[in-house]
């Protein structure tokens, strides 16, 4: 029996292997021209015990129900289609108009979906965030205030109000992760949106200082986001988008000072992926 693993079809002939494969949580890592962070995102999910497959969008469009073979959907970072027009815009339209109904159903079924960096930009532009039910864009992520690409580590404050996001359970109130983007400035369509997001506990991360206060100036606020917003989820808490890269801090070694968490070899990023995998078990 042929199964697609690691992006390549391989032959699984062993019954035990097959049974294990069927039992595991399966993650679809969507890739297209210009996706860059697919390998490390795949690795992060596999480290958490899932089977993660890098799937090209053409395959998904060809077989529109394929998405339902998986439990989790991840949109990794990169420059999809070169970020021509605007970051993530072309992939967002492709997903919305060719697979919109399927992805909406997948989200409303409660399956975890994560959009990291370019993935977050795609979620924003196809309207899967903040409300997957209506698939309409209501905020954007645009050019940083510094006018430059920014690759640096930031502190993130987890919102204290009872957070519904399944991806950040057991995450402490202050963590650090790297960002790397030139279009990460969060701008809502109007102020009302911020009120709604706050009321529904949809704001997950804000850029902050070492002491957990909201970061008001560059560089700890790397892009000038309104409300210093770095990550959002839907009201159900299963669809999560964030500009920082959790997949770049799954090992303590990846931290600039090799900082360990809970005294083991992992980083905060791993916990984020672990949450989703455990949620589906």
């Amino acid at each position, binding site marked *: 029996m042929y199964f697609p693993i690691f992006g390549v079809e391989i032959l699984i002939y062993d019954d035990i292997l097959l049974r294990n494969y069927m039992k595991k949580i399966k993650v679809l890592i969507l890739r297209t*021209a210009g996706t*860059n962070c697919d390998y490390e995102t*795949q690795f992060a999910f596999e480290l958490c015990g899932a089977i993660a497959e890098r799937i090209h969008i053409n395959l998904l469009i060809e077989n529109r129900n394929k998405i339902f073979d998986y439990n989790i959907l991840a949109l990794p*970072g990169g420059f999809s289609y070169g970020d021509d027009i605007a970051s993530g815009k072309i992939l967002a339209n492709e997903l919305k108009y060719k697979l919109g109904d399927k992805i909406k159903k997948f989200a409303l079924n409660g399956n975890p979906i994560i959009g990291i960096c370019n993935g977050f930009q795609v979620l924003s532009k196809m309207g899967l965030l903040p409300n997957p039910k209506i698939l309409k864009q209501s905020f954007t992520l645009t050019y940083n205030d510094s006018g430059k*690409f920014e690759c640096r580590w930031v502190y993130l404050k987890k919102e204290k109000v009872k957070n519904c996001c399944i991806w950040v359970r057991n995450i402490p109130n202050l963590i650090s992760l*790297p960002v790397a983007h030139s279009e990460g400035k969060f701008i809502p369509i109007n102020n009302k949106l911020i009120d709604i997001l706050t009321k529904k506990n949809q704001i997950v991360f804000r850029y902050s200082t070492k002491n957990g206060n909201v970061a008001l100036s560059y560089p700890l606020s790397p892009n000038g986001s309104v409300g210093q917003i770095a990550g959002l989820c839907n009201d159900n808490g299963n669809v999560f988008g964030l500009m920082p890269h959790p997949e770049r801090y799954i*090992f303590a070694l990846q931290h600039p*000072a090799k900082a360990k968490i809970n005294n083991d070899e992992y980083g905060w990023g791993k916990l984020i992926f672990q949450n989703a995998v455990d949620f589906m078990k």
Partner: protein
Amino acid sequence: MIIKSIVGCKIIKLLNLSYKQLNEFSRSMNLSLSLLEMIKIKSYFKKIARNPTDIELETIAQTWSEHCKHKTLTGIIKYTEKKNGRKKIRVFNNLLKETIFRATIELNKKQCLSVFKDNAGVVEFDHKNAVAFKVETHNHPAALEPYGGAATGIGGVVRDILGVGLGAKPVAATSVFCFANLDIKKSQIPTGACHPKRIAKGIISGVRDYGNKIGIPIVNGATCFDDGYIVNPLVFCGAIGIIPQKRIEKKICAGDLILIVGGKTGRDGVHGATFSSINLDQQSNINAVQIGNPIVEKKILDVMLKARDLNFYKAVTDCGAGGLSSAIGELAEQTGAVVYLDKVPVKYSGLRPWEIWISESQERMVIVVERKNKKKIIKIFNEENVEATFIGEFTNSKKLVLMYKNNMLANMDMFFIHKDLPKPVRYASYTIKNEQVQEPIKLHSFEILKLLKYLLADLNICSKEWIIRQYDHEVQGQTIIKPLHGNTIETSGHGDASVIFPYTIVKATKKGIVLSNGLNPRYGKINTYKMAASAIEESLRNAVSVGADIDKISILDNFCWGDTDKSKILGSLIYAAKACYDMSKAFCVPFISGKDSLHNEYFIDKNKYSIPPVLLISAIGIINDVTKTVTMPFKKENNKIYILGVTRNELGGSMFTKFKNIKNGIIPVVYYAESKIIMKKIYETISKNLIESCHDCSDGGLAVAVSEMSFASNKGVKINIDTVKTEPKDSLTVTEIMFSESNGRFIVEVKPENEFKFKKIFKNLIFSEIGYIINEDVIIFESKKHKLKVKEKLSVLSNFWRRNINL
């Protein structure tokens, strides 16, 4: 089939031309062929009794270009070296083979798996995998069009990595630039040239946009500023990739098919190879610069590696300089090939056959496919929207045949194309200058402080964070020692080297790859041997500083020189190449690949602008355990600071003498025996976790090195200059000790509890404790003996170093 002229392809009546006309002809067609070469071509066509077509001449011009065949460095050179009126003469039949390559052969190291033959050098990573490394120059294109030239520089070197063996997966990139002083006044810029700020902005943005979009972290680099680069900026781009050892060899047989994948062919980049082999002037054709598209290359990368793992092809190479003509020409050297040019996908109609054949349009790879995989490989590329087209096949005729719409346009012997280029004798000479020690430099404390501030704010020394943060140096998640070292998120400084931990590709490994470089063009203005030796030593020092084992380091050379047709300029290159051989042997570090960019000259209104000689050495090392690495910022108060190595009166070509406008001074020598043993011991102490931080002394000497460690950590430091070991003893002034750029020195930080073990390892070597880290916002350099005390707030000095650079 007979060759006859068709629309778009002319027969050139070469056989009737006189010597003078041949020379004229080469120039008017932009062939960059010398008279000797034109005569050789004429005699070949006389032998086969016909005139050549334009496409045949273009093929030869590309293949025989300096860029493709490196004919200066592999040609015959008669070299004269003069010192104190005495002459030594030596004849090189092939400079590369007798210096750089010879060292590699003689060292015969196990780690070298494929050197000097493929698109990149390949060294062992572990028993199954290997690492490919290549550094290219892209100077001529960047001189004409900074953004596009630099972008395609990074694109080109990534394709080199994709084109090594059956293709390696790129995991990191490097970029090194040489610009003119950014603060230069407008009136000092030659008419018609751009301001260095504009050039620098274009080049940095070009590398940033291409590198970020293709998803390869740029993790190591250097930037050097000197007015010698006013119209000839230099751009070096490097890339490393990981390849399974069983995929290193290419195989090609008659009957295999030629597949071209990726971008379409257009008129951009026509004559790139020949134009980069000559001096530039204001008439230089900007069409020779290619247009890059990183996403197309990323798509190729994604599918190609998938096809590689499925065994769908047998060989691959990139379309770089010379386009299809050199890619297919090189692959088919042993067999022969027939290519149907009308099948090549083009961007627009109207291209003449020879333009299709030599265009350097970017993002194209040539793949060799066995007939049985014909359909499968097309399918896999098309699935991800990558264009793939069969354009010909390999034959056993040992001839290159080009067809266009059923007409034969070229039919030449491979032997003639590749082996028959004439080898003229070139002459070279070098006069070794006598260096004299400068008058003793005695400065007061306030003068030293003022100077330190100037040095810290100098473009060559100041923080390069403004460049580094624009590169996504952490994409792929494997950069565990980043280009900016820091103990916290807020504070960092650029480190000596970076480490890649390729965990997503090599599963369950603990090994890592260290990348560093060495570059000292200031020394080369006086002595190119010492420049080359220092660059090699500096690259090793940088790698060792983060924890590399010198036994597992390999290096690459990049020569950028002026017009080597002049014997003195060629002589300075040979003198540097001799240093490469000597140092490679002395440190037991092999060269694995290299590249030269000669003729970096530009003419404006008959004024000649030539670059000072530059040798970039890029080092790659394998480390066994990525957890056993250190960074350069100071770690903790009260830890002791040691200097390893000897400080000598070597201020020639230093940053200090540049500022004080002192002409004399000894250029730093490499005392390799001393330096090598210190490097080995540092590796030992790092693997035993005995040192907390480590930084090498280079530009600006001890004073700058200590300051940088302090800035990167925000920790104050107190240094006692009297304790620094000098040679000859007590012969240096405080200023000289602080700013001498002697090679082979490191600053390390040791915890008090490790001091005993640390000293035991360095027993019998030259080292001394020079100070400690303090819990105050100050940097202090003190000499009780000379009653000097240089003291300044750390934050004040740091502001000089972190000066604002607005591009």
